[in-house]
């Protein structure tokens, strides 16, 4: 998501890196470029100004100018400042009361309803039962949307009452009676300058005294992010922020702006339309990600939640014993697809942004490989040597490809098996053979 910014900073600073020693003019040139990149990333201009001032001060200090690796020093300074702005370690939800109340607020279309459902799912995974409260009585079908999401999650949706205040006033008791741990209130979208609607939120807050009041903000928001966040914060004293739609290519400068304007931690980020696609926000990683240093930890977490550990161990075991079959290959591909689109995975690898441009991983190719494997019988997958001409024709028909595509999978499998065997004996580098990503 921050690709362009990272690659820009990379270009500027690799230019610096080449030199042995920096002059103040070099630093200034780099900082000008960084300023432009940050503005283009929608970081608020005031934030940029302050950031630049403190980076400049530190960058021309002797620690940088006299260091042997001034380029890296500048990177470090920018990264440190970004990290500091973003907040140090990640902050989770503080749910002290029983039942605890979370209230979601924000502009129209920022993703409150989806976020409510995503939060409920996250809490459900932690063993907490939520009730979703439909306090948006204005947008047509908003209640219906929440009701359907509740159904999907197998969680109750509370909607008794005609005004938002009326609806929420009964919910705490209801939650207690129905053994819910958390109450998640989905409020209507509103402009931060709409006084009567803002006052409604204040009333909702008074009635429910929430543990968490989270501002849901669109990562694509421009310079206004600061004013929006500040207005909501002044009225409600927010406890945190959820940044949505980070799966796009918005560089997400709003993250920095909101944080600077409110001092509130960003607690979660939305990275897709589907309900599991909500991730914890890690300020430090985010700052490093802005600088193109990758986001390995998030990736590992994601892999852990998607991949069935037992199955993974089984496969590892088979590899060791050289009994890796097409069936295992099929399972592995399937697990991999569960982690989400390859492009999303690449985003998190250091330099993955650049890789994405050049490698051009075709998701469809992976899906096609999976389709071919699915068109084989179990027997064929366990013992590929029985696949002769007529079986190949049948498999090709079944998966809608040509026979040579089937041949291609089979030969790839042989190669991979060789590579994996190598890896299993501990002689080679342990990595997934890259040719699997770079199909044809």
């Amino acid at each position, binding site marked *: 998501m921050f690709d362009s910014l990272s690659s820009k900073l990379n270009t500027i600073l690799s230019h610096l890196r080449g030199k042995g020693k920096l002059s103040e003019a070099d630093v200034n040139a780099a900082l000008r470029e960084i300023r*432009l990149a940050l*503005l*283009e*990333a*929608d970081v*608020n*201009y*005031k934030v940029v*100004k302050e950031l630049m001032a403190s980076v400049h001060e530190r960058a021309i200090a002797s620690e940088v100018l006299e260091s042997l690796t001034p380029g890296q020093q500048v990177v470090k300074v920018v990264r440190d400042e970004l990290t500091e702005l973003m907040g140090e370690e990640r902050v989770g939800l503080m749910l002290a009361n029983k039942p605890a109340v979370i209230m979601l607020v924000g*502009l*129209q*279309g*920022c*993703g409150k309803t989806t976020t409510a459902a995503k939060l409920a799912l996250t809490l459900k995974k932690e063993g907490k039962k939520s009730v979703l409260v439909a306090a948006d009585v204005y*947008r*047509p*079908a*908003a209640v*219906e*949307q*929440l*009701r*359907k*999401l509740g159904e*999907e999650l197998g969680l109750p949706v509370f909607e008794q009452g005609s005004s938002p205040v009326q609806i929420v006033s009964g919910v705490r008791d209801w939650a207690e009676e129905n053994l819910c741990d958390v109450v998640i209130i989905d409020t209507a979208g509103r*402009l*931060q*300058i709409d006084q009567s609607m803002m006052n409604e939120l204040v009333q909702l807050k008074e009635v429910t005294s929430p543990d968490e009041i989270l501002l849901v903000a*669109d990562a*694509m*928001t*421009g*310079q*206004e*992010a600061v*004013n*929006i966040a500040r207005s909501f914060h002044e009225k409600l004293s927010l406890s945190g922020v959820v940044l949505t*739609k980070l*799966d*796009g*290519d*918005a*560089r997400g*400068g*709003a993250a920095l702006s909101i944080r600077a304007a409110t001092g509130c931690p960003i607690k979660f980020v939305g990275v897709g*339309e589907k309900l599991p696609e909500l991730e914890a926000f890690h300020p430090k990683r985010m700052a490093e990600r802005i600088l193109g240093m990758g986001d390995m930890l998030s990736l590992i977490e994601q892999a852990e939640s998607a991949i069935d550990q037992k199955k993974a161990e089984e496969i590892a075991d088979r590899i060791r014993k050289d009994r890796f079959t097409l069936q295992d290959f099929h399972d592995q591909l399937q697990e991999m697809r569960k982690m989400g689109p390859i*492009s999303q995975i690449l985003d998190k690898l250091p330099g993955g942004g650049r890789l994405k441009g050049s490698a051009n991983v075709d*998701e469809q190719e992976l899906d096609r490989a999976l389709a071919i494997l699915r068109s084989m019988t179990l027997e064929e997958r366990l013992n590929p040597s029985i696949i002769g001409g007529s079986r190949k024709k049948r498999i090709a028909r079944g998966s809608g490809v040509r026979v040579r595509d089937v041949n291609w999978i089979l030969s790839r499998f042989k190669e991979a098996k060789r590579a994996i065997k190598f890896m299993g004996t501990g002689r080679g580098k342990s990595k997934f053979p890259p040719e699997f990503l770079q199909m044809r």
Partner: protein
Amino acid sequence: MTWTDRLRNGLEQTRNRLTDSITQALGQGGKLDREELERIEEILISADVSAPIATELVDELSSHRKTRGIGREEVLAILKEGIKSRLSGYERSLSLRNDSQPTVILVAGVNGSGKTTTIAKLAAHLREDDPTMSITFAAADTFRAAAIDQLDIWADRVDADLIKHRIGADPSAVVFDALEHARRRGGVLFIDTAGRLHTKHNLMEELQKINRTIVKRLGHKPDERLLILDATTGQNGICQAISFHTAIDLTGVVLTKLDGTSKGGVILTIQKQLALPIMYIGVGETKDDLHEFVSDQFVDALFST
């Protein structure tokens, strides 16, 4: 209240702060100095005008200053002209067909930009002009929970026919059925597509498929292919416009949610790069708050005191 009044009211918050802050940026007496110019540049950037265009506009001010010196009161006028000249020449409104075929309007945009509401507003205007016109809504957002219900409620309010399938259905199939319906009834067909981030390859393909379905059935592209853009969007709006333009060859942009304090400065870059007309702007929640975009009036409203 004339519509320009309403436009001005809608833009009240936006306008106040823009004019006020520029006036404030100018110190007392004497000529414009470097620092003041820099502050004006910042104000433009804070309106989501891209940094390069903000620099251009300020350079224009600066060159005026050098050649003949400008008074402070002229600053606003020069900026206004600069922005007007960048926005004018692209105005156009919805064009309805006058042959026997239905006018097909494909509406696309990222999640939460205001597609469904915009369709409802446009339809309400058409309904007001012609109480007997046949209006059809195609519920091609089969992904988001209750998207179909939302459109259904609007269809009821503006007396439009709703063509829908089940949630999860192929949007192109919905469009196909809606086309059949509209071909029999004539009038206008609005296609409400699911919100999609422009970076999602498969979802952009889905949008192109909808487009192809229409071409196959009617022998021509949808008459209007509109991008709905949220005015609070920053520089990412450019990426959105480029991607959607590449996918479905847009005919225009509708800028929504201008009633906040956002100024939508990103449209300057969109016009510069894509020369796409901004067709409508939304400055509020009622149907009367959707206006045809007229650059002069828009910029005047933005800067008026």
